[in-house]
């Protein structure tokens, strides 16, 4: 099995695969709009009042732990779940009443759901058959698609003769072949191993971007979400926690739930005064970048990437200081993962390899980047 | 699942052990048909007196049981066979599976029942196959019930009759024979043609005709059915509430019924001919014969047997049943049935 595969653009006549529609090129136009969406199962709310919108050509990641409602949301957009309240409009049209097979959306399933009684070719052909595309046109598209996912020569293989990675590529080709207006991907890389996943994530993004396909991608893996998405919607227990770009979500998680899901643990209790000064047992921090000025007791997140060893010739950006004892030091390759004990907290930071951080039990002085201090609501 | 398997396996073992049970030495097996019945007490008394253990082997309907007896000729399944009737008598005798035995009790049995002069088959019981009518229905609809089978083709009895298929039912065959006896080989098909035009229903079996179509016994719509002359006492005997009058009536006017006689015989190849004879004597003796009416609802062959009250009151016998000889039956059975089928069904 070839683990590495790359699109060779020279070989693939992209224009032949996707016949660009005029509106598809307008990337600033809102294409999908979800408003006040709720859904219940056995009186248990699965989704509560979810709203967001998506532009043409964007890749949206629905990110959340299992049970957060992300797959349900995807299936609702697909039309596979219909018991909902709220509205979903696509290109300005309410699609709630349109059955899934008439929405012209594509979907890639968790275990691929390839048709076991059909060959690779017949699987990819299925959507085109349903569209009643002419035979010649159909053959050309399938061939191009298989080439795009580098499965030329696999046309007549049976599904049970394929490896996991090959199945994944057949599934992608199958969902792309009918030129969906919107591609939905339900944890498409879930069952593959890490290395393969990292590679495929990037490849999927490249393919989607090349074809200018608008896509919704469900995952529970934040790394995957960061590398594939233009926008991320973080879901937790059926509520939309934050909807933004990957960068913004990482830099300023909207709340503790999002922050925790991203792996952040450094939450400091303290008090904010009217001059935007945060006081806690760690000391005084002036919060410059925060626009919010909720006075009174509040929680501050110290992002783990926002710290450096405090030295005499300090970089002016790292203005805030704090100190503690090294509880543990873990070598991570590109950085050290430090757990630092202060009077009240045990805080985790990632420090660069140089300057060399002190060993366990030693005293440590840290300088913090003000932008890495995020006030939690 | 596992527990289920254990239960199943142990029940299997139990079954297996039942097969291998060795029978007592003086066991006499009586092969018979589904409808055979006898009281526990009568059998128990006989077993006590004679020291013979009786074992009954039911082998399907009368026809099927006889064929099994014929097929196992030479290595018989049983010592005796009960249930050959006069429609099958010739076939049974031709197959040469019975041993002659002139039981002293034959003296008590009317000569007209003793169809086999060599006494290979001895008459045990008899009954008449005839029309049964639903008295209530006729009273309610203010109509006169038929008194003769010839009446059935009259317009006033249109769509009122259900008969059995002679190809699949023993009373059906008997009734066909009654019509042959009555109208002769030349005339019976005309009668049946008339009956067909009169919208007769043909059922494949007695159960279906009686419980499926007869107004008196079921939710059927036919107040006239081909059944036995002894059916009315059975209806009274098995009524849900006490009845003082039979709700049905048998039509036994001259040449309107066919008499079925059932025989018993000792199977050739029995290892216990002595005991088998004792069992034949028992079946012809008064205790067994007096048990017959209420167990099988037919008349005992032995004229010394006293009839139960319900029989005396409600059962009738044809004075002059239609007659067809057993030989003629065996020789023409297929042709008659074929002709009947062509006339009535096709």
């Amino acid at each position, binding site marked *: 099995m070839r683990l590495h595969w790359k699109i060779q653009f020279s070989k693939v006549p992209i224009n032949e695969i996707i016949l660009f529609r005029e509106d598809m090129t307008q990337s600033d136009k809102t294409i999908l709009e979800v408003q006040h969406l709720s859904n219940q199962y056995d009186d248990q709310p699965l989704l509560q009042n979810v709203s967001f919108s998506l532009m043409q050509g964007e890749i949206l990641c629905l990110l959340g732990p299992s049970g957060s409602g992300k797959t349900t949301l995807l299936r609702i957009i697909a039309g596979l779940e219909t018991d909902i309240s709220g509205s979903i409009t696509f290109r300005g049209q309410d699609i709630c009443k349109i059955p899934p097979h008439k929405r012209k959306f*594509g979907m890639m399933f968790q*275990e691929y759901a390839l048709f076991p*009684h059909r060959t690779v070719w017949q699987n990819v052909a299925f959507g085109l058959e349903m569209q009643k595309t002419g035979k010649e046109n159909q053959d050309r598209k399938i061939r191009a698609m298989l080439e795009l996912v580098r499965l030329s020569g696999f046309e007549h293989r049976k599904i049970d003769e394929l490896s996991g990675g090959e199945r994944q590529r057949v599934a992608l080709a199958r*969902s792309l072949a009918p030129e969906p207006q919107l591609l939905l991907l339900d944890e498409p890389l879930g069952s593959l191993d890490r290395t393969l996943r990292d590679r495929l994530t990037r490849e999927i993004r490249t393919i989607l971007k090349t074809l200018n396909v608008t896509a919704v991608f469900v995952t529970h893996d934040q790394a995957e979400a960061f590398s594939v998405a233009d926008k991320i919607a973080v879901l937790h227990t059926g509520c939309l926690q934050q909807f933004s770009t990957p960068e913004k979500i990482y830099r300023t998680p909207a709340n503790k739930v999002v922050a925790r899901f991203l792996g952040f643990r450094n939450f400091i209790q303290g008090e904010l005064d009217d001059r935007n000064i945060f006081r806690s047992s760690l000391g005084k921090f002036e919060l410059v970048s925060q626009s919010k000025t909720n006075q009174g007791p509040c929680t501050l997140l110290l992002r783990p990437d926002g710290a450096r060893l405090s030295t005499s010739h300090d970089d002016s950006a790292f203005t805030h200081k704090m100190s503690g004892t090294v509880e543990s030091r873990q070598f991570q390759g590109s950085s050290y993962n430090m757990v630092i004990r202060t009077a009240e907290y045990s805080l985790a930071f990632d420090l660069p390899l140089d300057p060399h951080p002190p060993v366990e039990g030693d005293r440590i002085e840290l300088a913090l980047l003000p932008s890495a201090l995020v006030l939690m609501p | 699942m596992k527990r289920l398997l254990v239960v*199943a396996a142990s029940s299997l073992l139990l079954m297996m052990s039942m097969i291998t049970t060795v029978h007592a030495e003086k066991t006499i097996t009586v092969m018979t048909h589904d409808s055979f019945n006898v009281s526990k007490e009568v059998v128990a008394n006989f077993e006590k007196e004679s020291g013979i253990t009786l074992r009954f082997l039911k082998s399907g309907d009368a026809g099927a049981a006889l064929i099994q007896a014929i097929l196992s000729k030479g290595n018989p*399944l049983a010592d005796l066979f009960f249930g050959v009737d006069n429609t099958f008598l010739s076939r049974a005798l031709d197959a040469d599976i019975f041993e002659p035995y002139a039981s002293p009790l034959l003296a008590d049995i009317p000569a007209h029942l003793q169809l086999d002069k060599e006494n290979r088959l001895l008459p045990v019981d008899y009954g008449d196959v005839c029309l049964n009518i639903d008295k209530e229905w006729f009273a309610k609809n203010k109509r006169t019930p038929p008194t003769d089978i010839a009446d059935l083709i009259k317009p006033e009895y249109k769509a009122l009759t259900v008969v059995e298929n002679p190809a699949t039912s023993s009373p059906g065959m008997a009734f066909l024979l009654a019509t042959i006896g009555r109208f002769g080989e030349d005339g019976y098909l005309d009668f049946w043609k008339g009956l067909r035009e009169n919208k007769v229903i043909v059922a494949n079996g007695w159960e*279906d005709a009686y419980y499926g179509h007869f107004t008196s016994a079921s939710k059927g719509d036919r107040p006239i059915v081909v059944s036995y002359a002894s059916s009315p006492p059975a209806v009274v005997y*098995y009524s849900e509430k006490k009845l003082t009058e039979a709700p*049905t009536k048998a039509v036994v006017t001259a040449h309107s019924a066919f008499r079925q006689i059932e025989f018993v015989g000792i199977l050739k190849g029995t290892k216990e001919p002595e005991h088998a004879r004792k069992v034949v004597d028992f079946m012809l003796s008064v205790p067994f014969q007096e048990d017959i009416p209420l167990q099988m609802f037919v008349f005992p062959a032995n004229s010394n047997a006293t009839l139960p009250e319900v029989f005396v009151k409600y059962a009738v016998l044809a004075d002059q049943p239609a007659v067809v000889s057993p030989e003629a039956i065996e020789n023409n059975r297929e042709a008659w049935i074929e002709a009947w089928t062509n006339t009535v069904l096709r």
Partner: protein
Amino acid sequence: MKQKNILLRWSLFSLPLLFLVLFYFYPLIKIFLLSFFQGDDWPPEKLSRLISSPVYGKILWFTTWQAAVSTLLTLVFALPGAYIFARYNFFGKSLFQALTMVPFVLPTVVTAAAFRSLLGPNGLINTWAMTTCNLSLPPIQIDQTVFFFLLAHIFYNYTLVLRIVGSFWAALDPNLHSASQMLGASPWQTFRKITLPLLMPAVSSAALLVFIFCFTSFGVVLILGGPSYSTIEVEIYRQSVQLFNLPMAAALSLIQIVVNFLLMWIHARLVAHSRISFYADTPTTMPIQAKTKGQRFFVRANLFFMLILLITPLLALLLRSVTGEDGLTLAYYRALFTTESHSIFFVEPLAAIGNSVGFALSAMTIAVTLGLLASSFIASEPGGKSSLWDAIIMLPLATSAVTLGFGYIISLNTPPLNLRDSIALVPIAHALVAFPFVVRCILPSLRQIPESLKEAASLLGASPFKVWHRVELPIIRRAILVGGVFAFSISMGEFGASAFVTRPHTATMPVAIFRFLGQPGEMNYGQAMAMSSILMMVTCSVFWLIGKRDN
């Protein structure tokens, strides 16, 4: 290694093979030989009518026609039912499932009684229609018509399709359905292009069983169809029992066997060729509650249909068993337990239940054991040969019971096989009919297990037995259960073989029912209905319990 495998597989298969040879081929061949070569008449004379008379051609045509129509109708009606059982949860599901098995165990006469009390000229519906609409003639007149026994065939075989296809359908990945929809296929296109092809092994297995059942239909056609309709099986009975024309009966049996064998062979080849694996890596999703209006309507419509088709005749029967001349009564049930009949053949209801259940459990054990061994063998046999074995194993189903019964009489007559009058013949005969059923239930599931899974298990160091026990058995557990349930019910409802060797104390429930129906009188009929109701309730509760445990 390979040599050893072959040896192992054949030694597994030897038991079912021995069983078939002893209790099927040997008796059958012997009765054929006797019929054709030892009769007094020269057989061609007795057989000449087979060709000269158009009757037999017509019978063969009618038999095939009605079987095909019955099969088609059953499939059309039962497939939606199989779908809702596979995909949805609804109130009373396990009870419904148990109830659908009841028709399967009802003796024909009882079924006929049930249908008549519902649809007959004086049945519930006609009486109601006549009184409410003031009609002088009953509006429904299907008694003794072809529709009546087609309806009865659907009634009998509905559960076959429901169970076999339903359990298979439940194992289908529901995402395949969604995937097809997402690719633009309408529900109907999805069914036709995706679901149906994937269901094909189970659908064709079920269809084949239904077809053979209807092809060899005896009681249903005899009673409900009336005398104008005759199947080959009816004709075999008539020729052998009524006319004592054994050569003709044997020839007809042979025709019946050959036709069915060809059919089964074609079927086996089709199923083996279209061998498709869709073993889902993840356990398939649990059945869901119907949510949308459409789904709810679909589920309810199906349940309503089941209620009409299956439950109303049973209810009519139940009603009949408690209705006396003056309305409701328990007299028949009381009489069952306190009868004054002194007959030596009288069996207490409890004893009859015990006999029935005992025979059924034994037959089930034999059938499941043999079926499991035979399926394992067939599944591992390469294509061409496996279809032949598959078809051979199905033969007992296609064989006339009368012919085989007579075969037993003339062949199993010397020790150590002197079984012809032994009650062991009852579970053996039942198992012979039930065993092909079990194979039909298990084989499709067994074939779905991908080779890779077994290989993986043996690479992990599992012995062949362990692979079978730990990997295959758990996967086909449900199929075994379905097969077992069928084997059990076939035995519970069987009358022919039980009646062949009835002894005073071993009467089963169907035998007891027949005993009552053999004599006139209100009490007899009432007790037959009461006994039928008990049979109904006993089977229903057994299946309900099994279903509960299963869930």
